[in-house]
């Protein structure tokens, strides 16, 4: 996916009628993404609006394999948004079943995306989504991690994430007693 080097001003080039943006990962790889997809990232949107994209946008905090996933997510969601915008029946609101099914499909796609990731890939994706300010991706990834914790005992959680238990026995006992008295709605 590397673009030709030395193409000045070619970052914002057109491909099949769509304006493209070039991104550079922390390990030097270049990636292309449509501007529409880039708009999903508040950070990128500001950079584009500020006009600073001639030579590509460097992202020193995002590694190549993570950036790949980010781009997949943004392209998919940008396409879905474009589809529902151009769909006249969706605008009329009459086919609310269609829009509901479409968003369900999108959710399924999101889940598939995060389900296939190893732990460190998942955490990297969370950090990237946060850095690039992509709310939907941050939500999907955080929820995945949260789901891994739900319905588990502390010991099970520690096993899943390889966390060391740094409480003393007495501390643990005390905490277990305390947590019986207050509850949230």
């Amino acid at each position, binding site marked *: 996916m590397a673009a030709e080097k030395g193409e000045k001003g070619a970052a914002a080039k057109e491909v099949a009628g769509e304006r493209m943006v070039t991104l550079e990962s922390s390990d030097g790889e270049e990636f292309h993404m449509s501007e529409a997809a880039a708009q999903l990232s508040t950070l990128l949107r500001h950079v584009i609006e500020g006009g600073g994209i001639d030579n590509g946008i460097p992202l020193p905090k995002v590694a190549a394999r993570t950036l790949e996933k980010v781009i997949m997510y943004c392209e998919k969601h940008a396409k879905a948004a474009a589809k529902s915008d151009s769909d006249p029946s969706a605008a009329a609101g009459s086919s609310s079943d269609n829009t509901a099914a479409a968003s369900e499909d999108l959710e399924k796609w999101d889940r598939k995306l995060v389900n296939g990731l190893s732990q*460190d890939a998942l955490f*990297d994706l969370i950090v990237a989504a946060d850095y690039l300010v992509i709310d939907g991706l941050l939500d999907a990834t955080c929820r995945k991690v949260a789901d891994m914790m739900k319905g588990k005992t502390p010991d099970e959680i520690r096993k899943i994430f*390889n*966390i060391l238990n740094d409480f003393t026995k007495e501390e643990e006992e005390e905490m277990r007693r305390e947590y019986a008295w*207050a509850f949230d709605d």
Partner: protein
Amino acid sequence: MRGADLINLALPDELLDDVLRRVGAGGACKRDLDACALVCRRWRRLERASRRSAKLAASGERADEVLRLVAERFRALVDVSVDERLTVGSGGAGAGTSASASRSRRPVHSTCPSRRRRRMPLVANFTVQISPFPLDQPVGDDGTERSCLTDVGLTHLARGCKGLEKLSLIWCSAISSTGLVRIAENCKNLTSLDLQACYIGDPGLIAIGEGCKLLSNLNLRFVEGTTDDGLIGLVKNCGQSLVSLAVATCVWMTDASLHAVGSHCPNLEILSLESDRIQNEGVISIAKGCRQLKNLKLQCIGAGDEALDAIGLFCSLLESLSLNNFERFTDRSLSSIAKARSCKKLARLKINGCQNMETAALEHIGRWCPGLLELSLIYCPRIQNSAFLEIGRGCSLLRSLYLVDCSRISDDAMCHIAQGCKNLKELSIRRGYEIGDKALISVAENCKLLRELTLQFCERVSDVGLTAVGESCSLQKLNLCGCQLITDSGLTAIARGCPDLVFLDISVLRIIGDMALAEIGEGCPKLKEIALSHCPEVTDVGLGHLIKGCLQLESCQMVYCSQITSAGVATVISSCSKMKKLLVEEWKVSQRTRRRAGPVLSFLCTGL
């Protein structure tokens, strides 16, 4: 070999916090959050910082201590509720045992040395037991005086959780002005304060007014120990932000307070006033000053027509009006509500105990309130049928109609309603002795959207009317308690015509028997609640047929059914996996059933 702890390495605090918040979102979250807090120190720190709301039963010697620890540990608390009506489990709690339903539920009388003993209202449906902290609270004998939350605990809370927005102190009889002053000093973001049945003084209220300028909701129901000066002082300072105010049985409150509310609370939208001392002048001040009023509930013996004239004149945004025990209230005042501009928005009207109201008022409502959605008339014995002609003509959007103890209303009235209000969804008539089959047939013909029907003690209703309804309306809730002409045939029609039935009350129907239960079992698979008390013809056989088909059953009441035996009860328990509440005579429950069902059983109290 243990792998690397990636999560703590990769995620900074804010992102781990994002994840933990999502663990807490949705139902059954407490245990999950507790588990996360126990994973390691970092997670404990973050989890504590992210808890936003807590509900505590603060009876017991360590109540203040509990609140101190809560405030220390969970600094981000925004919503705290301390309710002394919540029952406290005896003995300690094991780790993570939340709603352990094996403990008994007896309401607690909390007494404090310096206050007089208060009678606690019986609070139903509290299913969560809270153990006092720490574990070694001794199980006291019944005679010991228990202390409750005091100003000390409240001070800890105030100082620890400065971001507090909602505070609820219900029946906390040992709280005084001092505690409230601390809250006022520290919790500047307070928007909602609920002090029901507390005993506080004027300085406390005044301090809240001075300190909490964002206060929008104030509940002073059953509060004692204050005078007009307290409330006046409060509204003078933070009246601008006040949107909702509730006052009940506060014998200290006079019209002077209401005058102040009218003067200083222009943004008030919700007002609930129950007081014997309030007169017309007080309500008139409110009307003149609180033009944004949307939701008004009045239970004031001392007020009458003039008060409502004013409401009608000034409160044009009124959507919901509830008038209770207005003896001095006649047709005239409701007419003024009706004729004034305010009626265009009136959606919910409830009139309770207005014995002098006759017909003209309702006719005006019918003519001028096209937006009426809900109408409740309780104990208005002088209202006659003709009133409903106008309601039927004018209020075509009517969704809910409740008529209780309106003894003169008969079939003609119901026909007027049915023909005019085709959107009727809920119809409830209690003790409508003149209502009969003609009314029901008209409802069946016209109100196809009807989902909830209550005909308690409408003794003229028979199978004919019921069958008509069953064939036309797919009911979800049906209450026929006391309609003694109903037989198995009527219920069969219901069972066959209402497959969506979720709630059924056929108590005090002397003639119905097993066949009705069998039909219901076959026709109503979604049934969740059934009451069949006082049905002497029902036997274990019918019960068996019922539960074979109604697998979703959660609640069943069957006391005074002489032919139901312990075998029947046992079958219900063993077959209904979702059963949550079963009301039956104690002697009908075998030991084995008691062991199996424990928390689900409620027994008839014959020893009162």
